């Protein structure tokens, strides 16, 4: 047993070394997806279009100077509207931020000083409205100090308006990581493994008398760890670049378990089929229908859907859809359990059908 653990550990570490020493081959898809993420950052989040403010002035003109100050901020596009109209504009996404100036604005207290007031600010989560809150507060503070020349009297209370599909990234991100897990989990595993077979590397390992299961397990471990690292890196990059409104921990869990499923498939295919080109073709012929099923899951005829709902890709799709709607880990537990069961079955199958040559 000790020897088997030693063999497993040594093979796993060797695989890691090979991944690290060949970053282009092992991470090209991952790097391409990271670049894609940056491109989306440039396209969707470039400085430029201003924050669209709608101001509800209930003070009957007392806040004209403050509104003028807001208009003077170059990155604010300010319009005025009634409270009802403003809320409609905000909910429809036509403005990013609503500022309600209360009727008490500009009134004085019994001692003749400006009475404290609070501006009610509602922003659309995940838009420029959220990122421009500090600028709004700074503008209000400046008005407070320069115009009223009093101890701060205007406070700002904020509230976020959460809407489903808060931004393009919330649609894009699951797709990017799903593409990575299918790409590197299924396709790369199948390609690498069958390449070892065709070049004779596996025959040399066979000559040592080690168990095929140990070899498959070591390969699965190192590939899985690399896949998990890549998935984590994409999620971290996305959360740094964008305002992501998904439960990232749950998404990460869903994706790494899904990665294990696709890895199991890739290893089973490559272990079973000798010719690397044939193995890649078989992997593709499995991957693409799965992507098709995932994309069209809602439109499949009921008869077919009854069958496809048990496929691993259906659990991945369902889990992602739920997380996209704001669900948390508890809501995707069933998907996770089914995916884990698929992963175990496929990895055991990969060990069983494996052929050294």
């Amino acid at each position: 047993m000790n020897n088997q653990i030693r063999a497993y550990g040594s093979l796993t570490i060797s695989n890691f070394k090979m991944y690290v020493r060949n970053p282009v081959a092992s991470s090209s898809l991952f790097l391409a997806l990271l670049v894609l993420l940056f491109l989306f950052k440039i396209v969707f989040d470039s400085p430029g279009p201003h924050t669209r403010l709608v101001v509800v002035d209930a003070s009957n003109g007392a806040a004209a100077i403050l509104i003028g100050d807001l208009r003077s901020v170059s990155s604010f596009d300010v319009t005025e509207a009634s409270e009802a109209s403003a809320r409609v504009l905000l909910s429809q996404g036509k403005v990013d931020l609503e500022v309600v100036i209360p009727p008490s604005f500009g009134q004085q207290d019994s001692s003749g000083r400006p009475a404290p007031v609070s501006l009610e600010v509602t922003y659309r989560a995940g838009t420029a409205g959220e990122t421009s809150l500090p600028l709004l507060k700074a503008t209000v503070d400046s008005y407070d100090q320069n115009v009223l020349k009093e101890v701060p009297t205007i406070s700002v209370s904020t509230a976020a308006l959460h809407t489903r599909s808060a931004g393009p990234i919330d649609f894009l991100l699951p797709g990017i990581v799903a593409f990575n897990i299918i790409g590197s989990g299924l396709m790369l595993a199948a390609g690498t493994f069958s390449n070892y077979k065709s070049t004779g590397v596996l025959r040399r390992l066979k000559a040592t008398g080690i168990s095929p299961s140990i070899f498959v397990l070591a390969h699965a471990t190192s590939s899985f760890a690399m896949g998990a690292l890549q998935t984590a890196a994409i999620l971290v990059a996305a959360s740094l670049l964008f305002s992501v409104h998904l439960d990232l921990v749950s998404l990460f869990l869903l994706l790494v378990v899904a990665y294990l499923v696709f890895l199991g498939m890739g290893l089973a295919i490559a272990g079973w089929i000798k010719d690397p080109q044939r193995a890649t073709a078989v992997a593709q012929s499995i991957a693409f229908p799965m992507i098709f099923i995932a994309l069209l899951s809602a439109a499949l005829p009921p008869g077919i859907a009854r069958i496809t709902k048990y496929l691993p890709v259906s659990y991945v799709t369902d889990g992602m859809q739920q997380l996209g709607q704001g669900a948390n880990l508890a809501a995707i537990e069933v998907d996770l359990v089914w995916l884990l069961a698929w992963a175990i079955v496929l990895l055991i199958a990969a060990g069983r059908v494996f052929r050294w040559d």
Partner: protein
Amino acid sequence: MSARIDAYVENTTDLATDQALVIVRDLEKSYGTVHAVRGVSFEVKRGEVFGLLGPNGAGKTTILEMVEGMLPIDRGTVTVDGVDVARYPERVRGSIGIALQKSAFFERLTLIELLGLFADLYGKEREAEQLLDRVGLKDLARRQVKTLSGGQQQRFAVAVALVNDPPLLFLDEPTTGLDPQARRSLWDLIDRLRREGRSIVLTTHYMEEAQHLCDRVAILDSGRILALDTPLALVQELLKTGFHKDVVVWPGDLEDVYLHITGKQLREG
């Protein structure tokens, strides 16, 4: 007796014992309708170098791989040190040393890392540097296999085959494609391994190599053993039939000239 036969007798001072380490009986193998191995039987004694000779397609590699436990046996029995190969192929493979006809290794691992990995796979102590030293590759320990010359790759394959300190080594065409210096270097290595008391089974196309290295040889064709004995006995048997070759025995040959001009030392790189 010619000078060459004298040299052979001197070279093969009997290190072998009568104890058989490998016993092959009525071995057969078919690929579809092709009968690749047809009822082959032989024994390999402890401490001897045993050669399997024959033209391409004679069945040398197929026999070797069945004996190693690398290929399933269709019919017949093979025991290695008393262990039934058909029943315990992994156990046999773990106890012997194998240098395949085309040994491939993981790319991007250095020689020393590969030897460490194979030591772990065999569950043996890591003695990578000593092994590289023995095969003359110590200075290349940090290089990757793909950067080695053909001869260096073959010597590295032998180093890997020695990782588990096996009493029995299988070398499948170890010198094919090597230049004279590399071939001589590998002969020296095989000679040293034999003198350490290891048994070696090798296949080769080169009769000179078999004559130089092997205590006994089996000559195969079409999956059958046609002759099996010491090289000297086989030559004597031939001479008894009245065989006569009109040759001028030169005190040297073209290879001697080549090695004299280019030097005997191994070319690295």
